[in-house]
């Protein structure tokens, strides 16, 4: 089925999907390079699963084309595509044994002697002794591995994973993330992974496409997305961001902004829009980049750092770090994560404090966006 000598890129050109008047996916161009681990990340209803299903052939795109390598597959039914899917909640055939589930694809393609291949596959996912069981006799994690094995045995050009870990508990999920990553490295097949869990996407994928409202908001390596979000949605959906609405004082290679009398700086290269003096800018900083000192130690802060004064509203101790919420005239509810190296007994709710951070760690976003985008929609990851 697979011909690895051909270019195995998945190429989507202008594909979109409408259901009546509702647009699930806006026209979208996307290329997934062969052999990569690609994640489509977004909240439920953002179009990520629809995009995946269009690659699988389970949904016909309203417009546009899908290419696998040089071959156009837009109108091929799923059973004629060299693409296999690991379904959400697995969709294992309840009436067939684990062995027959895994052999299903081979048998449909008319392969007679499947025993050896299936046994090898069972070994790969470490389920050798379960071959004759029925799916409902396995645990969630085992079922998940069967679903992966059932798809991989066909050596697809692309493996599609639709929230494959969504039904597992947190600990098992972490374990399966590493397992999937191992399998992907071992077999070298392109993985396209749909998830709403930003941590999962960042842990596993080489490239992440963040989707929102049927569009790709931003696409890149996990670290790049995290450090340089280009929209408020990405800033809020991936991790947490403190966003401060500020007006631009001057815009050179260093941008100077002010908010409620406090002056902040950031490099122009870290702005996703071109700031103009007199205009507005959303200034952002990640909570773990910020340091926190009691107000009386303000003088000890090195020159050139961005500083904000405020008062601790709440603090919660979570082991590796302490998370503070600081109220400040500049911005209500600034979040700060402080590593628990030496705990300062003065940092308690009600204390006056100064927040400071390296201007290099500041990013600027277009102020014409919803500051709250991506916050409410984040689902619990547990």
């Amino acid at each position, binding site marked *: 089925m697979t011909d690895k000598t051909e270019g195995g890129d998945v190429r989507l050109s202008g594909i979109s999907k409408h259901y009546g008047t509702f647009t699930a996916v806006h026209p979208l161009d996307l290329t997934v390079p062969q052999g990569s681990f690609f994640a489509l990340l977004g909240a439920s209803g953002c179009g990520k699963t629809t995009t995946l299903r269009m690659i*699988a*052939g*389970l949904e016909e795109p309203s417009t546009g084309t899908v290419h696998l390598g040089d071959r156009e597959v837009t109108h091929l*039914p*799923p*059973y*004629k595509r060299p*693409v*296999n*899917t690991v*379904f*959400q*909640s697995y*969709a*294992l*055939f*309840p*009436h067939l044994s684990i062995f027959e589930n895994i052999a*299903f*694809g081979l048998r*449909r*393609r008319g392969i007679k002697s499947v025993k050896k291949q299936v046994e090898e596959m069972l070994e790969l996912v470490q389920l050798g002794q379960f071959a004759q069981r*029925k799916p409902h*006799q396995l645990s969630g994690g085992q079922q998940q591995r069967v679903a992966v094995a*059932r*798809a991989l045995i*066909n050596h697809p050009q692309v493996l599609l994973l639709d929230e494959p870990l969504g039904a597992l508990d947190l600990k098992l999920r972490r374990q399966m993330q590493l397992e999937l990553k191992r399998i992907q490295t071992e077999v070298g097949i392109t993985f396209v992974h749909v998830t709403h869990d930003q941590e999962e996407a960042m842990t596993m994928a080489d490239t992440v496409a963040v989707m929102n409202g049927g569009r790709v908001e931003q696409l890149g390596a996990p670290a790049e997305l995290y450090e340089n979000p280009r929209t408020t949605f990405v800033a809020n959906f991936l991790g947490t961001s403190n966003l401060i609405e500020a007006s631009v004082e001057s815009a050179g290679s260093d941008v100077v902004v002010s908010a409620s009398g406090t002056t902040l700086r950031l490099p122009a290269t870290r702005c996703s829009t071109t700031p103009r003096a007199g205009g507005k800018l959303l200034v952002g900083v990640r909570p773990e980049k910020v340091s926190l000192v009691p107000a009386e130690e303000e003088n000890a802060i090195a020159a050139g750092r961005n500083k904000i004064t405020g008062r601790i509203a709440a603090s919660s101790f979570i082991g590796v770090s302490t998370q503070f919420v600081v109220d400040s005239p500049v911005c209500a509810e600034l979040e700060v994560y402080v590593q628990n190296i030496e705990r300062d007994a003065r940092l308690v709710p009600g204390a006056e404090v100064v927040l400071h951070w390296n201007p290099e760690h500041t990013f600027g976003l277009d102020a014409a966006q919803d500051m709250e985008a991506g916050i409410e929609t984040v689902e619990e990851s547990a």
Partner: protein
Amino acid sequence: MRTPLTWLRRNLVVIAGLGTLAYMILPNVVVTVFSFNNPSGRFNYAWQEFSLDAWKDPCGVADMCGSLGLSLQIALWSTLAATALGTAIAFALVRYRFRARGAVNSLIFLPMAMPEIVMAASLLALFLNMGIQLGFWTILIAHIMFCLSFVVAAVKARVLSMDPRLEEAARDLYAGPVQTFLRVTLPIAAPGIAAGALLSFALSFDDFIITNFNSGNTVTFPMFVWGSAQRGTPVQINVIGTAMFVIAVLVVLAGQMVGNRRKKAQPK
């Protein structure tokens, strides 16, 4: 304090429930006991003396076993037809979006929400007006008609609870439409189809009212019993009734036992 009264109050549900069960089983007991009767007159309503005559010669009454065979034949054919037609409708209703869904749903529901006699009478009106000879075929047509809705309801319930992703998974794993249906859809929907078929068989085999109107001179087993209630009830009727009861209970119990054993055999 445990007085008889509190005991009674605690077990009221059990006592009432078992009382109802007794009420439901009593006629079967009577049918069984009177299959060993040797009645004095034509009617087998009063106990005379113990006899095995009827059991030794179950087909000793003219036409009875013939009518039984006819009923089985009609039940078999109407089950086959109603199951095939009803399963197709159930799949269309669950798996596809189309115009007139509401109308189709109502059309399926109406035969179940109507006194049987209304359908029986209107079918007779059709056959009379069209000048169709009443008999085997009119009975079969009528039975397929009223069994159809029950099959749709049974299969629909099963298909509704079936994960549509299973079929997608089959298609994703190189099974074409026919293969997907044969290898995945049909095996998973089978219990619902079987339930619908069993119900059809029971309904058709035991149907009286619609058959009464549309059978002409053809005599099914319920028609035979009805007629004998006027002319005289042979003991053999009770023999057949008892045998049917025993066979049914044994089959169901065996089925349950197999099911239980299978459940126990599954390690987890």
